[in-house]
């Protein structure tokens, strides 16, 4: 069991490494993707800053606390794009019947799909997100000790797990929609962007969806509330690792279910 898991992880690293090497062949691409990712996220921060210049707090949340929430989304996005960008290739893979080859190899198809691409914009996200996270952590009113730092790190990793699981889940729509574009998953990803702000600003329906149906709020708002010990949401935030495991589980389960519907192309 342990040996199997280690082999799976080793192969995953090898597969991803091959993608990294392939991507780095195009050096200009690497820079364009990284810099554009930084630019996109920086604009988001300027936007927050511009609002908070005129308004001291929104719904009881202050600037650096919101930056913390925002930074968690950027980091989770960066990690998911770096280690599991392959979810976004599922639409093309299914549409062109390229899953056939993956089904023949002695390695779980879901891991082959996830490791089949690497997004270099993830690096830009990760650099900017980490910078923001550090800046935010230094400004928020929290007393840090070893336990809280460990909790923070655990929650960041779990937040990425939530995003990866939900990316896989939403991209599984490819098995049903059969379009070569991942527009459904992309629209859900945009919905997930709502988690860049404190979810308390939203109406009840949106809040429930972000918490329960597609729990994007667990990649940012709830973990941030847990670290900041801010409001009743902090207790939910401690559940982030559980939610991450749930998201990854439901993603793989739906993938397996989708696989049973897969009938290659040309039939």
């Amino acid at each position: 069991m342990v040996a199997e898991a280690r082999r799976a992880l080793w192969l995953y690293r090898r597969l991803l490494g091959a993608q990294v090497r392939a991507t780095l062949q195009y050096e200009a691409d690497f820079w364009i993707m990284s810099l554009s990712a930084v630019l996109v996220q920086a604009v988001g921060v300027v936007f927050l800053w511009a609002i908070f210049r005129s308004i001291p707090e929104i719904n009881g949340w202050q600037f650096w606390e919101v930056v913390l929430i925002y930074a968690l989304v950027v980091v989770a996005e960066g990690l998911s794009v770096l280690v599991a960008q392959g979810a976004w290739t599922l639409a093309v893979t299914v549409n062109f019947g390229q899953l056939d080859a993956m089904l023949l190899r002695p390695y779980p198809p879901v891991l082959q799909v996830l490791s089949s691409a690497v997004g270099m914009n993830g690096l830009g996200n990760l650099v900017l997100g980490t910078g923001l996270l550090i800046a935010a952590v230094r400004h928020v009113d929290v007393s840090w000790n070893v336990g809280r730092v460990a909790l923070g790190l655990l929650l960041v990793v779990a937040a990425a797990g939530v995003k990866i699981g939900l990316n896989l889940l939403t991209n599984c729509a490819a098995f049903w929609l059969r379009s070569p574009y991942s527009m459904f998953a992309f629209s859900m990803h945009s919905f997930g962007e709502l988690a860049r702000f404190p979810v308390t600003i939203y109406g009840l329906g949106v809040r429930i969806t972000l918490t329960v149906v597609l729990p994007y709020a667990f990649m940012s708002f709830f973990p941030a509330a847990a670290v900041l010990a801010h409001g009743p949401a902090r207790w939910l935030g401690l559940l982030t690792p559980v939610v991450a495991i749930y998201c990854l589980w439901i993603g793989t389960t739906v993938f397996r279910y989708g696989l049973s519907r897969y009938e290659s192309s040309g039939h």
Partner: protein
Amino acid sequence: MTFVTAGAVPLPADTRSRRIRAYRSMARMALKSLLAYQTSFLFGMLASAFGVLSMLYLWRSALAAGPRQGFDWPQMKAYLLVAFVVGSLVSSYTDYRMANRIQQGDVAMDLVRPVDYQWSRLAESVGFAVYEAGTAIVVVLAAAAIFGGMPPPDRDTVPLFILSALLVLPLRFGIVYLSGLLVFWTQNYVGVQAARIALITLFSGALVPLAFLPEWMRVIATYLPFVGMASTPALLYTGSLDGSDATTAVLVQAAWAVALWWLARLMWSAAARKLTVHGG
């Protein structure tokens, strides 16, 4: 999909009207192709709708304590929704298709067609825009229903508002087309597109009215073509821009639309040379 078929009717000898007919049918075909594959487009529209939804919620909370920088909640609502509709124009396929054809080399086929490349892309963009604006207005109506209505446009500036909103089309086309042409040099489009969207969003005032930005950023914005792509029409709608300021703003929009058109011409001739080099 951009094929122009002559049909049963012989083409008139006059090349000018022949061209116009060709562009008209390109626009029609673009609209039809969008309708034929509308699922993807509608999901894309849904994605932008989520964006405007989060902005509305955020501003509603932010302005709950009272107006800021001259914006109260109803005005901000109107501002964001108008910015959303004009921002939907030329937002779906124009650049994506261009980039794809440039990367694949299919653009060589476009070069041999007896129509102008830039006018052809504009014609297609107009075709797309009909559907883009239509669906964006539906989204706005739904959003207005959720958020307790949307104030009507300011009566004094209505004609200028309409003119300004129409000018967004050539303006956005100019920027989108220019960024599409960049693919001749970069080969990468996803990154270029993301960067373009980020710049437009910030400096057009689509997310946050320029009044909220610090002085130096506003100065930069005034020298860029983006202001006319959201801020100008949205401010005209809410009536925050009037008198000679309003007229000037619309003239600036028109000037940029023309300038971008000719800039794109220059860039295209450079790009076409670049392509020849590629082909050996």
